[in-house]
């Protein structure tokens, strides 16, 4: 990196003092609708930040357009609220140029998967070390209630008065299919779980894709209530934990086992199956990750929540720095005079 950039940035990788969550709150008024799930995500991110032990000035939040994309304004870090769909591309450029930074993207199902879908799949395959928080509310909020690429088929919205005929994306499967190395799902109404996942995402080296089910109480209220509310949650959600069998239901009375490649629900109560028969989660198994991600829209199965996959793979920005280092060691540090005078030259006396 040039001496000019090096001359101003903090080279330390740890803060001099331990931060509090409050120190990550900016002076701007938060303008999301009262009751929006985004408040919870903001709070959890601010709570996790001090634990990451990264100097505040090294952290950058980048967003596109949409309700979720207001996020950077509320974080007392560096921030960039950009244009629709491009946050992941801006983040890629920043991280490649400045691998020393902790780069985050706040995006939504419209911003990240519709207009920004192309950049999303490409950042995932390149494995640029950026943490992506994808707030999925299954609706366009900022434009006031059209169906989104994660809205269920048949959904009635302002732009689909007779029901949407669009097949929704399964974001986790999309991220896995794009070569994502860290793919997870969490819930706005489960702060503890979200904090754990955000922390793991931050620690992961490579692109982290975290889908967060987020309630839009104005345009799509209750879209995830069956997964987030106490009365139904235990029967509709299975939490994925590395090395643990897939148990769910009230009192842990149900589990998931594999029938061939297909997950099926079994009872742990009727004596037919024990915990030993259940599928044990392994977050480093990419085949298993696909099987689990594909449980998503299967109404006979609980919704998987947690870390689908967390594996290591070379990171784009690291590989690029390696090429630069290798070129410098082989050819010597570039000298402008020599470069200008390269090729066939001749002298006129």
């Amino acid at each position, binding site marked *: 990196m*040039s*001496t*000019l*950039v090096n*001359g*101003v*940035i*903090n080279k330390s990788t740890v803060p001099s003092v331990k931060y509090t969550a409050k120190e990550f709150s900016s002076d*701007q008024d938060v303008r999301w609708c009262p009751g929006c799930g985004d408040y919870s995500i903001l709070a959890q991110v601010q709570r996790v930040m001090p634990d990451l032990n990264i100097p*505040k*000035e*090294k952290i*950058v939040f*980048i967003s596109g357009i949409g309700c979720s994309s207001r996020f*950077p304004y509320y*974080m007392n*870090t*560096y*921030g*960039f*609220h*950009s*244009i629709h769909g*491009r946050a992941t*591309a*801006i*983040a*890629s*450029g*920043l*991280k*490649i*140029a*400045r691998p*020393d*930074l902790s780069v985050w993207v706040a995006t939504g199902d419209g911003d990240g998967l519709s207009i920004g879908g*192309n*950049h999303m799949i490409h950042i995932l395959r390149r494995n640029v070390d950026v943490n992506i928080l994808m707030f999925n509310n299954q609706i366009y909020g900022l434009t006031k209630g059209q169906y989104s690429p994660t809205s269920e088929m048949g959904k009635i919205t302002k732009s689909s008065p007779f029901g949407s005929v669009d097949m929704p994306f399964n974001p986790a499967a999309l991220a896995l299919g794009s070569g994502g190395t860290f793919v997870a799902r969490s819930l706005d109404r489960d702060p503890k779980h979200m904090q754990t996942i955000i922390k793991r995402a931050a620690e992961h080296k490579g692109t982290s894709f975290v889908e967060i089910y987020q309630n839009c109480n104005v345009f799509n209220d209750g879209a995830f209530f069956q997964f987030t509310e106490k009365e139904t949650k235990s029967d509709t959600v299975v939490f994925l934990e590395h090395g643990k069998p897939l148990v769910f239901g009230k009192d842990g009375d149900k589990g998931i086992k594999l029938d061939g490649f297909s997950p099926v629900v079994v009872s742990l109560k009727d004596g037919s199956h024990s915990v030993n028969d259940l599928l044990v989660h392994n977050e480093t198994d990419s085949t298993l990750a696909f099987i689990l991600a594909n449980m998503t829209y299967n109404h006979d199965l609980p919704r998987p929540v947690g870390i689908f996959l967390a594996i290591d793979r070379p990171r784009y920005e690291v590989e*690029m720095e390696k*090429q*630069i280092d*290798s*070129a*410098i060691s082989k*050819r*010597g*540090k*570039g*000298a*402008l*005079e020599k470069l*200008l005078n*390269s*090729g*066939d*030259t*001749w*002298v*006129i*006396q």
Partner: protein
Amino acid sequence: MEKETRVLDEVTIRFAGDSGDGMQLTGGQFTNTSAAMGNDLSTFPDYPAEIRAPIGTTYGVSGFQIHFGTTEINTPGDHCDILVAMNAASLKVNLRSLIDGGIIIVNTDGFGDKNLKLAGYTQSPLADDSLSKFQVFQVDITKLTNLALADLNLNQKVVDKTKNFFALGMMYWMFNRTLDNTIQWITEKFEKKPELIEANTRVMKAGWNYGETTDIFAVKYDVKPAPLKPGKYRNINGNQATALGFVAAAEKSNLPLFLGSYPITPASDILHELSYFKNFGVKTFQCEDEIAGITSAIGAAFGGSLAITTTSGPGVALKTEAIGLAVMTELPLVIVNVQRGGPSTGLPTKTEQADLLQAVYGRNGEAPVPVIASSSPSDCFYGAFEASRIALKYMTPVILLTDGYIANGSEPWLIPEAKDLKEIPVKFRTDPVNYLPYMRDDVTLSREWAIPGTPGLEHRIGGLEKQDKTGNINYEPENHDKMIKLRAEKIERIANDIPLAEVEGDKSGDVLVVGWGGTYGTIKTAVEKKRKEGKSVTHLHLHYINPLPKNVGEILSQYKTILVPEINLGQLIKILREKFLVPAIGLNKVQGLPFRSIEIEQKIDEILGGKK
């Protein structure tokens, strides 16, 4: 027999053949040798759009034109004096560029029945009188090449690939050129394949000897060195020069260089060049699309890089929204548009100047952007350097316009000394006391650059309207009006920081020919010719289109008629009329080709009427 030698001031040769015939290489070698012998020159390659067009077809023809001379050479030549045609298709495609009385050298082996049919000839042009107004020399290059290599037992494919060296050898003989440069090149190029060194060298010498010993050619020519400014030269094309200009700007600003780009004709070579300069720490990011090209660069600019994105017209269309973001966030960025024929996909491999209004005005909202246009291949170096300087000093995106003609065309470049290039001073904000992201410098109106990683300067920027000074989101009517005007004035003030425009010719007179971009050499040639005839004609070439140099209005007022030749339907002329209310006349041609200087001369004559 001693052959007659005629001395010429300037000559234009066009080498033409099938894509696989090595015409670019042949032309390149002739260029390098002529440059080393001290001629001034200008070249232009003419590639087919198809990657591997079927052999022998007209759309598979590849050409290379070189114009060299004892005098100053500013264009690759309106027409060629000599056409080397390796097959029937290349003759058919290129015949219209040849002057009446010009020389055609054909490889007769390329005029067999199959070749004639593929080229669309019903009978051989060598057998009828269709070429009677030219001097035609028929040489069976293929056969002579085979004979020259008969004892080497080479594979026939290898033999076929050397026949361009026979043509090159003949032209070296015809123009009294040394073979040494090319022999040295062959020796280095095929270092590990001695049989190819032998084959290529032998065939080239055979071509030279053929000219010397047979009776076919009675005359050879001499083109003496040109009085070029002393110094060290290299041959450079516009895309190479653009790439070098950015590396130089990064060095002189002490910033890392970041290129976000998506391959597009004719701009891709800038990406290729820069991706090789890893030892300068250059980071080239080949993106998933044009939008990621610019937005990744914007991300890098936020992080403190000299950030650039390179593309052509359709790519600029896709980047438009992001250019607006860079305007709003006031981050430094250079967007290079190597213009090509449009609209839509248009003519990707052909040149045009039709993106000027797109560059100056083509965004949503009031989004002023400085626009610079390079005028020749080597001028692209200075264009890239200057665009970087302005972007960094004024914290703004800058558009650099080049075009397919100067991007691929090449000319000798008097290499500047690295130490003579001006430093580009950049200062990042570091003081956290009283920092406001949109506080401005009193003179330049530029905001400060505070990069992530700097303690105490954490701040947020974005595409929503900013409150003056604080940069917070703001919807107040008065604030928006103020910010719109501040951003516009910031760009207008750049006029205080660029050189005044200079005319080539007289301070006042009958006709002022105003050009911009790649038409420089052609207009200069035309104007000089008319001036030699004693006509009152002057040339003004604009390198800065937005803002214009402060004296342009004053200059325009000094001439009776203003002529604006452009390879579009009249774009600069709209700007000049709008800003200065001048009754300028356009000369507009949009054929995907550069102007010929004769076309400009004729227009000047027409304007001057009978006036001598």
